[in-house]
């Protein structure tokens, strides 16, 4: 066991190795490690954020859906109401129109009845005159008896 210069040599080598390690080995590796650590942390944070965003979006979409449904329901209700209104209105219209038609028809019928009666009356008068002529074997002077005939006709 000789203690000799080897000790100094080893110390010098030690010093050089440590300095080399400190300058050229440690920093890049540690930097890479830290960078990766940061990347992973960022990635995790991003995924967290994305999950939260997704949740928010889902909530929002559910909300929108609900709102849309509500709107649609309101629209349908409105439409129904409107349709009912229209149906009611048209029913009323139809009823009025129908009444009007009926009244018109009635009026027409009345008119025709009156006309027919008038015509009938005239004809009856004529027939009565003809009958009376036959009975009397003489002609009835239409001009002479027209007043009487009119009176008769009015009685019919």
């Amino acid at each position: 066991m000789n203690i000799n210069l080897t000790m100094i040599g080893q110390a010098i080598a030690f010093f050089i190795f440590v300095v080399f390690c400190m300058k050229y080995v440690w920093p890049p590796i540690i930097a890479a490690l830290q960078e990766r650590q940061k990347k992973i942390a960022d990635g995790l944070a991003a995924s967290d954020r994305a999950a939260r965003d997704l949740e928010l979006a889902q909530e929002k979409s559910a909300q929108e859906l609900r709102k849309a449904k509500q709107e649609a329901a309101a629209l349908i209700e409105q439409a129904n109401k409107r349709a009912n209104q229209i149906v009611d209105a048209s029913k009323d219209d139809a009823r009025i129109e129908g009444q009007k038609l009926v009244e018109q028809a009635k009026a027409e019928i009345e008119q025709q009845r009156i006309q027919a009666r008038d015509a009938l009356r005239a004809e009856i008068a004529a027939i009565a005159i003809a009958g009376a002529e036959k009975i009397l074997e003489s002609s009835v002077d239409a001009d002479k008896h027209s007043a009487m005939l009119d009176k008769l006709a009015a009685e019919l």
Partner: protein
Amino acid sequence: MAGTASDYIRHHLQNLTYGELPADYQRTDGTVLNESTWTIARSAEEASDMGFWAVHLDSLGWSIFVGALFLFLFRMAAKRATSDTPGGLQNFVEVMVEFVDQSVRETFHGRNKVIAPLALTIFCWVFLMNLMDLVPVDFLPQLFHLAGLEYMKVVPTTDVNVTLGMSLSVFALIIYYSLKVKGVGGFLGELTMHPFSSDNLILKILLVPVNFLLEGVSLLAKPISLALRLFGNLYAGELLFILIALLPFWAQWALSVPWAIFHILVITLQAFIFMMLTIVYLSMAHEDNH
């Protein structure tokens, strides 16, 4: 594998030493040197006669080799480091870096850019040096013997010079940061005012030498224990491998395999302990709570 068992063991525990032999020195083969010469020792006596100004080529060579291997691998990974999907090498390197970073974070709470890379270097380097222990004991020495080198001790951490060189560097850092963080006065105060303290000024002054002795010993014990723990564990492990290698070749596996498996644990643990203690010592140097 020539000679007796003790020769074999001694041969295996001898470093390849390069140093200066003085003039008129009689070498192992009997030749006498005319003038002082720088040369490779051919025997254990020659190596110890070279004194302090000699270098263990094998320890230093292997330690620098595995250290450079570590830095080469990690540098390659660092250059290609990406924050996207990492490749196999980067994965491995990141695991090591994370592990060391975590250890440092748990123990050291100050801000210091040196400690984490220092700990990484210590852990990987010591581990790789220890790992050389798992290379069969005769494999590399035999190869180098063929290449003409007499001695080759391939596990740098079984050389107390190597472990001392590292632990004394750590010690220098302890002193440096103690002085930097606490200042000269603070550091001296820590050495002299603790653990015994008094409100009485005279008693306080009287206690200074006692405190200084205690704290000084505990301070000096740090690098020594750091170096000797690693050295002792690896030396013992290497010695056991060498002893196992003395068995007949067909019986060696029965002992060397279990020991090698157990040794995987030891070398990792020792590298970890060296790293952890370095971090602890340096964090103590940063703490200013006295």
